[in-house]
């Protein structure tokens, strides 16, 4: 049973990687966007902040890595909606395969492409003056956390993609998720946010993960007087990922299993 599941999941992983190979434009676009944002925030917006430019860029690069990981919601949503509204799902549903392998393969393929996409983003970050200032083990932990968060975000996206009415609806809602990092400390510290917006931003999972990644890379200290997930960023991030995965994976798998019946 488990081996069948892994076998089918690997087959579906292969499917998604092949699709990307045939239509690389989407991947190129989703990878270029964060780089454009990084340069724009780093050199245009950043100049208006009180923080010195170089410090801000060291703060921004880990934030942008996390914001990019959060884009997994958008990508996951779009891919799942596409799949579930196209005929090929009928084929999978009439094959004697483990249905949960379909979303699993999608999430696994996403991790592969995300890991590859980190490289150019990191190179631009390095060129902007960002450095890993902590230990190697902590840095490895930061990368692990980024991928784990991406994985969780993708499952959130898969769930929403499956319940969306159409590919277009998923595209619109997915597009709106670019707002999520704006409501967090990914781009700018939340200290200056007005009252309730600040509370909201500090409870945003992206804030916890961004703080943890900055901490692990040794780029910025944990800000004092924050919400629990931000004050204990690594534990907070892991807790957020656990919550998102425990809620979304079973629901998404269930939706795939019973979908359309």
């Amino acid at each position, binding site marked *: 049973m488990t081996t069948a599941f892994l076998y089918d999941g690997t087959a579906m992983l292969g499917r998604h990687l092949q699709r990307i190979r045939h239509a690389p434009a989407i991947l190129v676009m989703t990878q270029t966007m964060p780089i454009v944002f990084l340069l724009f925030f780093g050199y245009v917006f950043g100049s208006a902040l009180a923080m010195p430019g170089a410090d801000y860029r060291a703060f921004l690069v880990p934030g942008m890595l996390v914001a990019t990981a959060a884009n997994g919601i958008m990508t996951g949503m779009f891919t799942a909606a596409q799949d579930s509204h196209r005929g090929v799902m009928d084929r999978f549903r009439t094959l004697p*395969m483990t249905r949960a392998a379909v979303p699993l393969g999608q999430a696994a393929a996403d991790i592969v492409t995300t890991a590859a996409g980190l490289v150019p983003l990191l190179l631009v970050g390095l060129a902007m003056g960002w450095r890993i200032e902590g230990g190697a083990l902590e840095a490895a932990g930061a990368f692990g956390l980024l991928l784990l968060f991406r994985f969780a975000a993708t499952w959130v996206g898969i769930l929403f993609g499956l319940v969306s009415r159409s590919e277009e609806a998923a595209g619109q809602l997915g597009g709106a998720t670019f707002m999520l990092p704006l409501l967090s400390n990914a781009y700018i510290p939340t200290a200056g946010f007005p009252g309730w917006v600040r509370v909201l931003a500090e409870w945003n999972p992206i804030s916890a993960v961004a703080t943890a990644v900055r901490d692990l890379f040794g780029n910025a200290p944990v800000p004092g007087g924050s919400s629990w997930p931000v004050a204990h960023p690594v534990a907070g991030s892991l807790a957020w990922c656990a919550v998102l995965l425990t809620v979304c994976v079973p629901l998404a798998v269930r939706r795939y299993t019973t979908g359309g*019946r």
Partner: protein
Amino acid sequence: MRYGAFMTSTYTVLSEGLEKRYGSGDQMVHALRGLDLAVEEGTVCGLLGPNGAGKTTAVRVLTTLLRPDAGSARVAGHDVLTEAPAVRRRIGVTGQYASVDGDLTGRENLRLFARLLRLPRSHADELLDRFGLTAAADRTARTYSGGMRRRLDLAASLLTRPAVLFLDEPTTGLDPHSRSAIWDAVRELTRQGTTVLLTTQYLEEADQLADSVVLIDGGRAAHRGTPAELKAQTGSYAEVVVAEDAALHAAAVVLDQLTGAEPTLDPDRRAVGVVTLDQALTLPRIVRELDASGVPIVDATLRPPTLDEAFLRLTGGRELVA
């Protein structure tokens, strides 16, 4: 008894009282209203009906894609509701709309499905060859023509040798060449003992392929029989086009004598048409008789009635539930 008079193991597809509604309130569509089907092992059953009759819904219920609101069905010895995985192991499905991944090549599609079925890759390549897709195998499926896409779909359904093959409007919108390629594939399969349930809007297709035909209208079986019985009841439609206006009437007289039915005239096209139930009436005979009477004809056809014409006859002139 659950399956009433059909209770026997020789039926590979058996359904009783299938009901399916879509939506609710004002928007509610009653797609299936107690559909009973019984397809004997190794035969081809044609589900014939106009758009919206419920053909696709029936196929989706029988292939475990859709849960009926009421009724039960067994396919290849297993209940579609309680033993769906066992049913899936024994069926092949080619839906009305392409069920392949347009973003993958033909070869990648078949290899993926083969892998999910634990079959060797070589098997996928053999099928590409068999369906004449080798040359296009490495292009993404979205670039395929309608006929190629259909063949790829059919190939995907035949990776395993399914006990039952479901084909939902396999040739709708295809050119004659692609159509006959699909027909040949179906005939080849039935020779090997596969049971086939196909839906179609074409009487001719049912006549060509099916051993039994179920006319489906408004979600229930309106008529059952063999294609021959169907033809005997619906007859054929003969039409001749004459060379000059003056010959129109003479042609009508000859056709009246031949068929005993009243011909209808279409002066604009200089055409005379008549419905005939006489199976012995052949096109050469019509032409000979007209010639003998000195009627100058430029065209003559003898074709099966259209689905609408057949429905009108079989359902006693009742309006189609379109």
